[in-house]
């Protein structure tokens, strides 16, 4: 049986399309997760600096300016930001797992039908 005899159905095409979209989303997620982790580190550093400083008024960046904010308020704000960021990171990690699982499912189906005629690996 020659490779070129394999018929490509619309369903196959849709599977290939779906795999391509999932792969793109996977890479986007990796970038977003990296950014969220960096934000997390920055917030950690900020929190640590806050503990070390003995000033009562801290310059806290809001928008493009540095507002003079009392220390306790800054502490609360940073905690809130860390909360929000952790939740975002968790959501992204979960989505990444789902995407990977779906990709593996599709790989099984597509390799099953096309064997060597198709390559679904990362270059």
């Amino acid at each position, binding site marked *: 049986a020659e490779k*070129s005899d394999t018929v490509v159905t*619309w369903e196959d095409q849709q599977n*290939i*399309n779906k795999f391509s979209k999932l792969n793109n989303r996977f890479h986007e997620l990796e970038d977003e997760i990296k950014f969220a982790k960096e934000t997390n580190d920055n917030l950690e550093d900020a929190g640590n600096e806050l503990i070390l400083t003995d000033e009562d008024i801290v310059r806290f960046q*809001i*928008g493009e300016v540095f507002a003079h904010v009392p220390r306790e308020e800054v502490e609360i704000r940073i905690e809130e930001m860390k909360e929000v960021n952790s939740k975002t990171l968790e959501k992204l990690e979960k989505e990444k797992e789902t995407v990977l699982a779906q990709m593996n499912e599709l790989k099984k189906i597509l390799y099953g039908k096309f064997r060597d005629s198709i390559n679904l690996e990362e270059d």
Partner: protein
Amino acid sequence: MASASAETASSSSEIATAAASPTTERRGIPAAQFVEDVQTFLSQLDLDVNSALAFLQERLQQYKLVEMKLLAQQRDLQAKIPDIEKCLDIVATLQAKKEGGEALTADFEVSEGIFSRARIEDTDSVCLWLGANVMLEYSCDEATVLLQKNLENAKASLEVLIADLQFLRDQVTITQVTVARVYNWDVHQRRIRQAAAAAANES
């Protein structure tokens, strides 16, 4: 699973012709025609293999151009959204300070690396930059409403843009698979011809 796919395979030809072009185009992007059978496809286009491949390659180039444009728009929107959120944050902070009755002291950038201190007392209104060298004064509440609306519009535009990009990627994938199949079909045909010629020579 196996029986279901066998069923779909037999009826797929009917479904496929109907579903082959679910949308003929989207926002000016032509949909790629899904090819059921390479032979029929080529006779339908009335092209030989090389011309067909050239046509498909050209389509891929066009798709690439549109993709560049859409990606640039996506980057702009993705930068704009955090900016609007920062503005909302500042307006909210000003309102909170007003309720507390205190002035807000802030260090702001006068020029690169040079900062100055400002004390913001009366915070009933803010000025919003609308673009085109126009800045308008709004009350804090009005400003919040406007910024919120801009944020929602930006997020909605981003969603539409992402859907467009996904549609585009599908068409690119379909076209790439068609190119591979046309090429393989051609190789297959050549082999048949060669085998036939060899058989003819022997006899």
